[in-house]
């Protein structure tokens, strides 16, 4: 009788080994609660992967808190527990490591690829007589306290940073302008429509419905070229200001990722981005695709970190001893 269990174990092991070889299981850690943009990105990528049979299964884990720092710590500590772990992240990762909120930066991970980009917009109410960024900027040059500017996140985070970048280019001290933080882009939009603030710095994605409804006018967008969905809106570059800035969302792997695993991810992502299903997802979600894979994603992150450091030093949000 002792033979039978051994045979059972052996056959089980064979089956397990076969299953591992034939299938790859991704585990994506999401540094935010369910329902938000990062969560949506991770889950859409996972869905398309499975749909195209690029992997067998994708599991997700939401680890929120600590401005994304808890997910980072969790990911670094537990990466070896999963077959193929990935971490989805976005621009605030750079912002928070510059602020010194957590002791990590993207250099502690292996950047895999950028997926989508959301651009910053400066908008006014549709009935505002000031129709161009130049007129609005001229008013702030005369008096930086002429009106208050709203944004959907705390001082020193993205909406404030985009505003500061735009103000620096017209020689206005960003610290002299009154920036009012609201709890989310939605509440900031209400403040603009209700007249509490006269200018709003926000993400294009959050603002789109109000642009389409004709309630607000885009003065300028931080995209490198015009965006199809809002063809009438000028970019900062067209207006003569060298300001291009994207809030990217992308995938990262654990620190010591073997080259062939990275190559596998890049191949999968290449096929995903070429698929009709992913194109339909971008269309449905209103996302703009971001092309930055492997080494070019690292270069992209380096450049954005320099850009952020400069403006954040200026508004007083980089720790001098910071990394």
């Amino acid at each position: 009788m002792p033979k039978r269990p051994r045979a059972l174990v052996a056959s089980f092991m064979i089956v397990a080994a076969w299953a591992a070889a034939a299938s790859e299981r991704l585990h994506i850690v999401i540094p935010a609660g369910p329902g938000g943009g990062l969560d949506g990105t991770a889950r859409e990528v996972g869905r398309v992967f499975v749909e195209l049979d690029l992997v067998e299964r994708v599991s997700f884990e939401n680890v929120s808190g600590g401005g994304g720092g808890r997910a980072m710590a969790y990911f670094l500590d537990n990466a070896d527990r999963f077959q193929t772990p990935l971490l989805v992240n976005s621009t605030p990762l750079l912002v928070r490591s510059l602020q010194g909120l957590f002791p990590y930066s993207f250099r502690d991970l292996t950047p895999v690829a950028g997926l989508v980009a959301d651009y910053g917009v400066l908008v006014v109410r549709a009935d505002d007589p000031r129709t161009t960024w130049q007129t609005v900027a001229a008013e702030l040059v005369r008096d930086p306290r002429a009106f208050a500017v709203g944004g959907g996140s705390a001082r020193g985070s993205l909406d404030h940073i985009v505003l500061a970048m735009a103000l620096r280019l017209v020689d206005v001290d960003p610290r002299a302008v009154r920036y009012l933080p609201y709890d989310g882009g939605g509440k900031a939009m209400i403040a603009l429509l209700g007249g509490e603030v006269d200018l709003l710095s926000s993400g294009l994605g959050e603002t789109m419905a109000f642009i389409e409804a004709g309630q607000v006018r885009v003065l300028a967008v931080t995209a490198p070229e015009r965006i199809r969905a809002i063809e009438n809106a000028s970019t900062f570059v067209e207006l003569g200001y060298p300001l291009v800035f994207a809030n990217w969302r992308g995938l990262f792997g654990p620190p010591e990722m073997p080259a062939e695993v990275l190559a596998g991810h890049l191949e999968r992502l290449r096929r995903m981005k070429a698929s009709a299903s992913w194109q339909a997802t971008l269309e449905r979600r209103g996302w703009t695709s971001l092309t930055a894979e492997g080494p070019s994603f690292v270069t992209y992150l380096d450049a954005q970190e320099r850009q952020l450091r400069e403006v954040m030093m200026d508004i007083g949000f980089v720790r001098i001893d910071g990394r």
Partner: protein
Amino acid sequence: MWEGIATGFGTAFQPVNLAWVIAGCLAGTFIGMMPGLGPITAIALMIPVSYSLDPAAGMIMMAGVYYGAVFGGSTSSILINAPGVASTVATSFDGYPMARRGQAGRALALAAYASFAGGTVGAVALLLFAPALALLATEFQSPEYTLTLVFALSSIAAFAERGQVLRSLAAAVVGLMLGTVGTDQSAGVQRFTFGRLDLADGLSFVLVAMATFALAEAFRMVLAGGTELPRSELAHARLHPGDGKAVTSTVARSSGLGFLVGVLPGAGATLASFFAYEIQKRFRRNDETDGARGIAAPEAANNAACTGSFVPLLTLGIPGSGTTAVLLGVMLSYGVQPGPRLLEVEPAMFWGVIVSMYIGNVVLLALNLPLIPYLSRILYLRRRVLVPCVIAFSLLGVYLTSLNSFDVYLMLAFALAGLALRLAGFPLAPLLLGFILSGMLEENLRRTMVLADGSLGLIFERPVSVVLVLFCVAIWAAPLMRVVRQRQNRRRGDYAA
């Protein structure tokens, strides 16, 4: 509009959608009943299910989960003093004492009927006024919010039992201080986090509520020892004769108020339930029905408010609360952009969701009433069984929302501190109220002051805010007058002696 309503009925009464309303309500109300789990958790848990549905069915189901969780949320507040969501804190004020008196069935039945009434009034109001009400949301700005919050905090003095005013205010200040932990929105820096990432996002409501209410109460029961609950009426879902009549006007008033407050982004169900409770106190009759009305008022209000919070979500695309923010994410994942044009682009979904709310409320009432006798039996458990269960569920609820063991230790520390405060005679409800309102109050006050270049002038320039200032003054004057009168009486007494 009538055409739209007809579309809505057409959508909501499709058999598939009917099934999803029922499924959503069922899931929501059960998750909501768990101590420590509220609407946000319920919705988050159901997101994977929603991905496989078409937009209208998905939204109908998710809305059902949301108001189902609010409906069921009162259960743990009443039975074990463990409000899983801020909007049912006020329900525990009168609900838990009633359950301790052995009338758990009555308390739960009152909550169910009041929730049903509030939800239905909310749904009717939503159907009739949704597009028009969107305006209200834009008219209410930082100065008005600041004053509304000051008014809510001021009502603590009115909540306070006689001789407890100073202790209540002191507890509220502690609550306000706890609310300042985390990232300072206006300066973008960390406060009182001691460099710990675990504190960077501030303290969570569930943690503070479970620690100061459920855990502190469980510890107190351990210390008090002794008597078991009277069991006479425990398991009867019956109202007392006269309860129905007594609560009718309270429910009507609270539902209307709740809906209006619910429309305001950010204020929502919590403020609505506190205001309703406060107003109900003003109408107290000092008889046996006070407790009944104390349960009915916040329950009608928070359910109406939950429906009201769909106004800014559907018409402006703006989430008024954490829960509606998650719902917004769900809509975006369907490629549906809620906002000013939703009504034109997706009429079936817009009206379908609203109409499904009536059906949902009927389902919830039919589901909850028969369950009451079984739920109340939790209190049949002997203390040495019940208390460990409460402790375990509270700790589990907090751990499951953050999956962070640091929160568990922090919660235990808070519970011990809460117990000490209670034994020293400090009421903990004001502490929790202060904590809930702290962040919103600070944020709005600072914006108001930045807008007025550092002065408070703005609140005296805007008509709505001036009215709110008058409300606040009136509510401050009442207990002060009482204190002054007491002092005078006492002094007169001293002289006489």
